[in-house]
């Protein structure tokens, strides 16, 4: 049996989900936002703080944030996980929590994160620290890494700035349907092309937002979640892959570890890309959406640019991608990954309002960390998909 099948398919489920302070949240610390989102997710599940026996977090600037959160909430946790793999951290937390719940070592995992980077500094808070090989060149990271990847994708596959722009426009189209999204004003391709270049071929509108925001999910056994406030959103499969830390060491600038993380998640879930009703992925930059759609099997390698053309991933298109508006137009507090799980949960529950998909039973959630370094994929499904 492949180790991928050892993942406890459907044994755990998201019972509660919440966001807090999306956009601007002045007056709150990152820790307070993290705690608040966690409390809201518990209330959403119909659970109490006293039910929590495991905490999972990665705070923007406190590398021991897990300890700070345990103290702040006063949770007597049997397990605290502060694992940091960048924006994919929280999907890795979910993997660990699923195994621990299935093993009956813990019962209720709170996975929560918040950042006030917009109100506190107005800049992207990044945990990336350059090596002696990168530092003397003063590369702006992470965007330099993504610019180098995107330049290579354009060179090899004929991907164009119009293709990158189609990703930005699709995200904005979804955001227009989401009252929580930070940037909802219409965006045209002309405006996209007029935006300042930051690291070619990427311009300002190829970059995720710099916002405040917090998100949380509560994970518990699926059988227990059936008796809670909402229908369970089952964790059907998950997988992760790390290929490098610094961009110079990426084995192929146009192929990410999502190839492996996705394959592992599909194998565990027993579903493939064609079964997915939606993809919620970490669009730190427009090139990410193109790379991940290729690497997660939604189109062949090199075809991602053409795949997203013509509104294909916008509202009403052939594949629903980032239905909240994503990191490009909804929220990006520095590490976006957890928001993919919250949006998929809302869609699967039928709580997504004007952006609700007609069929929303299976979701591929995918998050990225570092400079395309860490990739983690999670497949969520309605109870009927078990």
């Amino acid at each position, binding site marked *: 049996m492949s180790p991928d099948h050892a993942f406890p398919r459907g044994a755990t489920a998201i019972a509660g989900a919440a966001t807090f302070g999306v956009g601007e949240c002045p007056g709150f610390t990152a820790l307070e936002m993290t705690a608040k989102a966690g409390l809201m997710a518990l209330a959403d599940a119909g659970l109490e703080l006293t039910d929590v026996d495991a905490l999972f977090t990665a705070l923007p600037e406190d590398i021991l944030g897990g300890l700070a959160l345990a103290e702040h909430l006063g949770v007597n946790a049997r397990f605290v996980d502060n694992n940091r793999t960048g924006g994919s951290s929280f999907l890795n937390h979910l993997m660990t929590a699923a195994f621990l719940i299935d093993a009956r070592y813990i019962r209720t995992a709170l996975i929560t994160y918040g950042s006030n980077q917009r109100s506190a500094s107005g800049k992207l808070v990044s945990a990336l620290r350059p*090596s*002696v090989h990168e530092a*003397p060149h*003063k590369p702006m990271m992470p965007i330099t890494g993504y610019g180098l990847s995107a330049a*290579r994708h354009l060179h090899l596959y004929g991907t164009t700035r119009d293709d990158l722009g189609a990703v930005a426009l699709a995200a904005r189209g979804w955001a227009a349907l989401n009252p929580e999204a930070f940037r909802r004003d219409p965006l045209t391709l002309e405006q996209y092309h007029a935006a300042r270049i930051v*690291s*070619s071929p990427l311009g300002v509108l190829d970059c995720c937002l710099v916002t405040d925001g917090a998100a949380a999910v509560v994970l518990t056994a699926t059988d227990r979640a059936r008796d809670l406030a909402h229908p369970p959103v089952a964790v059907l499969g998950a997988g992760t892959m790390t290929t490098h830390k610094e*961009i110079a*060491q990426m084995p192929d*600038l146009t192929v990410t570890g999502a190839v492996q993380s996705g394959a592992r998640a599909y194998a565990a879930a027993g579903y493939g890309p064609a079964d997915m009703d939606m993809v919620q992925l970490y669009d730190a930059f427009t090139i990410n959406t193109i790379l991940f759609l290729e690497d997660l099997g939604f189109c062949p390698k090199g075809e991602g640019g053409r795949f997203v053309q013509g509104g294909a991933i916008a509202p009403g298109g052939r594949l629903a991608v980032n239905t909240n508006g994503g990191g490009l137009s909804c929220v990006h507090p520095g590490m976006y990954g957890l928001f993919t799980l919250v949006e998929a949960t809302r869609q699967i529950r039928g709580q997504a309002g004007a952006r609700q998909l007609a069929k929303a039973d299976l979701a591929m959630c995918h998050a990225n960390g570092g400079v395309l370094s860490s990739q983690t994929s999670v497949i969520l499904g309605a109870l009927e998909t078990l």
Partner: protein
Amino acid sequence: MPDLIGPEARYLAALRDGRLTFQRREDGGTVFPPRLVAPGDGAPLSWAESAGFGVIHSITEQPQRPPAPPRLLVLVDLDEGFRMLSHLASGPVPSIGTRVRALIDREGEIPSVAFEVVP
């Protein structure tokens, strides 16, 4: 006699001396940045010196606030088979595949390798 310093310090000392070094596996594969053993299988490594020539694998241009010229960040594939992140002196933006050569900067706090287009 065993090395008294780690591979990173040894690499930086050579660079400070004006030599760009990398490592080789016995089967000829190259390793960079320097490590204790070959990544993946732990095979032994030996040191070698690069001639400093290569091609641009990818390049990104970063406009600066005037009058500063744009910055050019590159990934260079050295002829010996390893890849470095670096920068080019400002000027016209060369395309991917352009031939470049190393310019060792020994004066910085950390010695480093920039590149220039081969005329």
